[in-house]
């Protein structure tokens, strides 16, 4: 081995070791467990059976919730984050921009647990519903509904969407907008034909980030869904920690990874074809 090879190996080794120990090995364990049986007192007993996979239907609701609320939450984040990122990148004066960007991440300075608690009170009977009631608008139940979970998702994940979009808009060459106007496009058409396509990489990155994290989410549904709106993540907590059925939990986890893989692949296909064959449309 040359010195160069050694150096390369030394640089790659920590990351490779990390991936091996923290990702590959656990994944192998999960796959092996998923074919096993629940031991008498809970946990894992070696076996080879497909029962765990055939039983997945028992957790269909969790999968259905995850597969509707994760994409919906991603979309809601995208729709709300874009105008904010646009304002920050294109309209805010440089003096205000830094301050506003800091404000976007300020919520991260407190634990998501505490912030979700706050939402329990806001959406609970004494919060927004009672306020609406006082205004004579009826008293809708908000807490423990899919809506509450969506609110929590948007609240928690918005900054992750804002930043990639902000960066792509900030990097956008503003002379392209002048060129578009010069060629006869009114402002709104310049936005649709130049700004929007050129901020696609930011939207793709942000959506991917939020979507992947949402697929594994369990805290927000646990707190704002109150056991009524639960994700696959919640099912896993339940299976591993409550009923201690590790093999079935492993099968559910393996299925989730598989679903995620398919979803991400489809999504990448979609954004690729949307953006043409440009190789600089990086997704992550």
């Amino acid at each position, binding site marked *: 081995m040359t010195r160069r090879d050694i150096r390369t190996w030394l640089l790659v080794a920590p990351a490779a070791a990390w991936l091996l120990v923290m990702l590959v090995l656990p994944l192998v364990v999960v796959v092996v467990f998923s074919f096993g049986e629940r031991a008498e007192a809970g946990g894992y007993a070696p076996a080879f059976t497909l029962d765990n996979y055939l039983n997945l239907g028992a957790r269909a609701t969790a999968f259905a919730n995850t597969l509707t609320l994760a994409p919906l939450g991603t979309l809601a984040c995208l729709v709300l984050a874009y105008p904010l990122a646009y304002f920050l990148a294109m309209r805010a004066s440089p003096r205000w921009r830094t301050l506003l960007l800091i404000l976007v991440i300020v919520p991260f300075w407190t634990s998501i647990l505490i912030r979700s608690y706050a939402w329990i009170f806001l959406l609970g009977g004494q919060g927004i519903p009672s306020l609406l009631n006082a205004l004579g608008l009826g008293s809708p139940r908000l807490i423990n509904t899919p809506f509450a979970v969506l609110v929590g998702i948007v609240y928690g994940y918005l900054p992750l969407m804002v930043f990639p979009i902000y960066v792509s808009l900030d990097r956008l060459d503003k002379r392209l907008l*002048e060129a578009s106007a*010069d060629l006869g496009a009114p402002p709104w058409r310049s936005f649709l*034909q130049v700004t929007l396509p050129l901020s696609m990489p930011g939207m793709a990155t942000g959506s991917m980030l939020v979507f992947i994290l949402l697929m594994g989410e369990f805290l927000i549904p646990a707190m704002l869904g109150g056991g009524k709106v639960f994700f696959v993540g919640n099912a896993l907590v339940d299976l591993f920690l409550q009923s201690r059925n590790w093999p079935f939990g492993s099968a559910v986890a393996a299925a989730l990874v598989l679903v995620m893989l398919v979803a991400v692949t489809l999504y990448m296909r979609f954004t690729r074809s949307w953006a043409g064959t*440009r190789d600089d449309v990086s997704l992550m």
Partner: protein
Amino acid sequence: MESQTPIAELRGATKLFGEVVAAQDLSLAIRRGEFLSFLGPSGCGKTTALRLLAGFEQPTSGDVLLDGQRVNDVPAHLRPVNMVFQHYALFPHLDVAGNIAYGLRQRRPRPDAAAIAAAVEAALRMVRLPGFGDRRIWEMSGGQQQRVALARAIVNEPKLLLLDEPLAALDKKLRRDMQIELQGLQRSLGITFVLVTHDQEEALSMSDRICIMRGGRIEQVGTPRDLYDRPRNRYVADFVGKSNFFEGRAEAAPGGQTILVAAGGHRIAGTAPAPLAAGARVAASLRPEQIGLARAAPEDGGRIALPVEVVTRIFLGEHTEYLVRNRDLGEFLVLVPRQAEAATGAFDPGEAAQAHWRQGDALILADT
């Protein structure tokens, strides 16, 4: 027949950015079908003038007219004017054809796809890139991108084509080729071209008229020959071709001539294109090619001769350029044609010589 209405006009147009005066009281009529250049150093207001015409800036006071109509409040996208941007500003997410078709696609009613495709192909042929329509922008070289930017603008048949330092990013040889091509294109299309440049050679070689700017103001407008022969002041003379300047005080002389009295009592006679007050600080402009170099002062009484020492010699092929120094007047350039040098022989650095010119050849200019 050309219409008498100027295709575009600035009338006392002033543009302030906060406290900064970017353009002050610009008044200029652009003639139908001409090639006009704004020439000046960076920050002289030439780009602001162009942006006022394009509609990217609105004048703080004064008016902008297109084809006789006041367009101060008409936004850029509604003006029949197109621009070739300094760094091209091509759309990276569209291919070459998509870029060129962009302007046509904004028209309402929208032209049909076949008409657009035909116009795009014609524009590509015009800039000598036939068949490049489906290329990606980043696959094109700098010179090719330049042509695409040009095609993207001219395909719209604008009343005015604005070019913002379009050749600045190209290497010298390519720039020369593009200058010739731009001129040819302008003649064949009959579109009025307005060019912004800081490159005097570019302005001189391409333009019908040049507008020389300084500090947000127009110094002088004229044909390259006008500016070369009758510059209004030293600044203009310095911008148009190489020149030597000798400073001194003006003194009126008979026969419409002006005498400049320089350091050491040298009296340089010349014509003053602009009126000068006696005693004013002036500069005599002499082109290097107006000055000869000899071993002995010429007998001819009509010539003025100065003893000089040769500082450097640069061989330029047809000419040899000498930098010489006179004790009183300092250093200046002399351009000696090959034939003249054959008679006197070459001068070596350090050698003494006589620099001479015809008394009266100089231009006496305000020294500003």
